[in-house]
């Protein structure tokens, strides 16, 4: 798996302050040809970079399918084209930003770049778009329709859109203001049916639901389908952020899993639709190091043996997701 975000996960990672936070710059030219690079917006660059890096770090030369998620798609190009048609008399409209504004740009550019003619999909379901990509990829693998899938999520910041989100209280402007710090990033991984010594983890199951009328029951039946109970889960990852309105919707999950070690990550990544990908990266890192770094610990409980992690994410009472992973 490869992640690109506001900051890498490390012991010295800092909690983000109010406002918007751009993804760190990397040497995009190391993996993307400079000719193509010039035409790409930040989101496309991030998605291509993380996608190609994830492919490179897998033991596969090619994958059967590419499945991506993005809440807002290519927001920069979309906002640029929108500005062209709303600010003038529609007389100086150029196609470049329109061409690159479609939500499926990253998945299709990855296909073009790697000459992949396989199944190619883009989910655009708000803040569980990344988990939706995981869910469908897992579905394809389990049915045997595909044997390997490059899965990922990407969302970019557009200052114009952030201004609008600030107006409705979603992006924080100062300490104690409504909203939460916003970020951006790209998170890609390769899922394969093949057992391999270098595999990072097993993606066991993913579920999505639009309303959580009885979350505890939803969690129990999700785990039961995999022959597990909550007590058997080693740790949980919570998608909570600094927004007090949003946090209310995490209260019951925090309560229900309070006896387990709890992790959080959005204080490091910021909120964005695919930030749940950052959460998955944190979980995989915890598997590898077999410990929960202090910077991620939410309830300060230590874990003894990290063999399974349950991830829960939602946004403003909607777009719920549960993801279960196990060590191989």
């Amino acid at each position, binding site marked *: 798996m490869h992640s690109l975000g506001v900051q890498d996960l490390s012991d010295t990672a800092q909690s983000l302050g109010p406002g918007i936070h751009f993804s760190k710059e990397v040497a995009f030219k190391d993996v993307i040809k400079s000719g193509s690079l010039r035409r790409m917006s930040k989101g496309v660059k991030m998605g291509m970079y993380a996608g190609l890096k994830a492919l490179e770090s897998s033991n596969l030369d090619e994958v059967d399918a590419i499945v991506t998620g993005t809440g807002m798609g290519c927001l920069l190009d979309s906002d640029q084209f929108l500005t062209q048609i709303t600010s003038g008399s529609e007389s100086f409209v150029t196609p470049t930003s329109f061409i690159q504004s479609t939500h499926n740009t990253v998945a299709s550019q990855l296909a073009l770049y790697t000459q992949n003619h396989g199944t190619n999909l883009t*989910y*655009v*379901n708000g803040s569980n778009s990344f988990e*939706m990509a995981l869910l469908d990829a897992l579905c394809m693998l389990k049915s045997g329709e595909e044997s390997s899938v490059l899965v990922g999520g990407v969302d970019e910041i557009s200052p114009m859109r952030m201004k609008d989100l600030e107006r409705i209280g979603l992006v924080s402007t100062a300490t104690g203001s409504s909203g939460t710090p916003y970020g951006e990033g790209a998170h890609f991984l390769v899922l394969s049916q093949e057992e391999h010594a270098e595999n990072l983890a097993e993606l066991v199951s993913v579920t999505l639901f639009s309303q959580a009328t009885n979350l505890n029951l939803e969690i129990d039946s999700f785990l039961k389908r995999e022959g597990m109970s909550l007590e058997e889960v080693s740790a949980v990852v919570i998608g909570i952020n600094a927004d007090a309105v949003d946090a209310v919707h995490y209260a019951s999950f925090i309560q229900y899993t309070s006896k387990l070690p709890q992790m959080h990550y959005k204080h490091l990544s910021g909120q964005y639709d695919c930030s749940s990908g950052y959460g998955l990266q944190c979980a995989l890192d915890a598997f590898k190091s077999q410990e929960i770094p202090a910077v991620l610990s939410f309830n300060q409980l230590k874990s003894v043996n990290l063999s399974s992690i349950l991830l829960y994410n939602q946004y403003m009472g909607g777009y719920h997701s549960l993801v279960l992973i196990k060590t191989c």
Partner: protein
Amino acid sequence: MNSRIAITGMGIISALGEGQSSNYDALIGQRSGISKLENLSTVLADRILVGEIKKTNDQLAMSLNIDLSHGYSRTTLLGMHAVKEALQQANLTGNEANLGFISSTTVGGMDTTEKYVLTYAESEENQRFISAHDAGVSTRDIAAFFGIQGFSTTLSTACSSAANAVMLGARMLQSGQLDRVVVGGSDALSKFTINGFNSLMILSDALCAPFDSNRKGLNLGEAAAYIVMESERVLKDQPKKVLAYLSGYGNANDAFHQTASSADGTGAYLAMNKALNSASLSAQDIDYINAHGTATPNNDAAEGTAMRRIFDLNMPKYSSTKAYTGHTLAAAAAVEAVFSILALQHQVVFPNLNFEVLLDELAVPPVLEVEKCTVDHVLSNSFGFGGNCSTLVFSRNE
């Protein structure tokens, strides 16, 4: 596919009208829905023709008893109309256990964004449309309107979107994650897409003429269409009329160019091939192709080439219905799924309007008149920007 999937309901609103029967009547009566643009203000209005639904957002909301203080985009309102009809036909309310909703869109709430974006700084009242911009919100709002609480999601693969909603629905049913699913797409006309396609110089100022040698480009349209698919398991418990079956599907990427199709139609060829394999059918089993046929020079040539590669000398009857509805982007594959199912139900194929001269890539002309004939299997193509190519196969319920 392990087993075919039953379709028990469908709903549509397009430039041909609201509901299956008005759409069917227009298809049979050879009445195109293409007209001058009325509901949107754009400098291009006099230079283009569109497949527009002649109802304002207020009219669409009022006929659903929605208070006008709503924050819904046109995409959402159109979607609600089509989902309502689909659920009704399947005799469902929406809040049944294990019922999912899979929608698709390319513009999402762009029609309200482009109308209000410059007012957001001053108008708190208009700020209710800020969240409507998000593609996922149209799905969320439609799901909430019908009380669909479980699985719901959205996808966007440009003009092939709704076909992929159908495919995901099939996977969710076959894996047992859902028992019933409403799948389809909705896209409203917007200045954004009109200007976008215009800047690419692929809009026609005349009625579009798919597969015609002298075609000049496409007419944009708007529509929403959804179908209800149910598993064999629930149908055993609650038998109901099956309209048709989804028997196969295929998704492939052309991997050639962001907006253009390859000359040999690689993506289209692969998608059709995959769909036939998944349906365990051979090319000769197909009785009718509802082609993507947008009437752009590039699409029709590439699709024509790909169809010849698949069907060779056994080319089945084919037509594009884009000259009726315009190109309805994300909704196109769902609109044409409804048309394909109507063809199976009524044992009829629909004509390709405005056709005069055959293009070089094809050996036989498309269907030119309404034709009554045996239709057991229909193949429906949808292709989009980013090389996203999708094919669905629908089969008759004998």
